[in-house]
């Protein structure tokens, strides 16, 4: 289940955050504190956007920061940050960041498949982007 990988304790909401780099760092906090990832993974996620471009913005207002699987990752996990005021990620406004910490090439496939399926529904997508954490949590369980 997606919620096993991305439980409520990994979700945060803030009003405003200055830069996308700060947003990725903040979004990573629950995973750092739980020991699921190391600082190097956070640095790698930011470096990837600078090196490879902003393709982690998978849909309008939704980004999936991640870096190389297993490098600075101790356990498969995800965390979520909702920023009420969109953050600019190289020309793309983003309200929701989901950090993906993958340990290998495919153990996170089921979770990504669930996110894809859920957000393919327009109503779900709208509630996901504009909702508070409770609404987001409900959408992700649907």
């Amino acid at each position, binding site marked *: 289940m997606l919620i096993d990988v991305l439980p409520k304790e990994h979700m945060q909401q803030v009003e405003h955050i200055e830069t996308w780099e700060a947003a990725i760092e903040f979004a990573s906090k629950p995973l750092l504190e739980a020991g699921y990832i190391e600082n190097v993974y956070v640095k790698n996620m930011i470096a*990837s956007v600078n*090196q*490879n*471009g902003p*393709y*982690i*913005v*998978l*849909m*309008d207002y*939704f980004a*999936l920061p*991640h*870096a*190389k*699987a297993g490098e600075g990752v101790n356990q498969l996990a995800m965390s979520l940050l909702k920023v009420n005021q969109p953050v600019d990620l190289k020309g793309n406004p983003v309200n929701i960041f989901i950090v*993906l910490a*993958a340990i290998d*090439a*495919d153990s*996170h*496939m089921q979770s*990504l*498949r669930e*996110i*894809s399926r859920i*957000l*393919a529904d327009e109503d779900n997508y709208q509630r996901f982007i504009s909702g508070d954490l409770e609404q987001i949590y409900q959408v992700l369980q649907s």
Partner: protein
Amino acid sequence: MKFLAVCGFGVGSSMVLKMSIEKACKERGIDCEVENTDISSAKGTDAAAIFTSHELGEELKDSVNCPVFPIKRYMDKEEVGQAVDQFQENGGK
């Protein structure tokens, strides 16, 4: 027929893109296999077409023989669908 979905590491975004391509192909009745991979592996892999970001596409297109379709939103089934349509309109070239 094999398509490649490419991102920097071949684990996250490209896996999502692979799902979007599979969905678009299924809707269009196209029989294909989609593999997700990272940019350096993509350079040595044979495929009918490659789908990737604008930035990585620029880097890839000189080192592969197949068409490269830039995708902005990997999870946007309409955008991905349009790229698949374009591949077909071009006669698979």
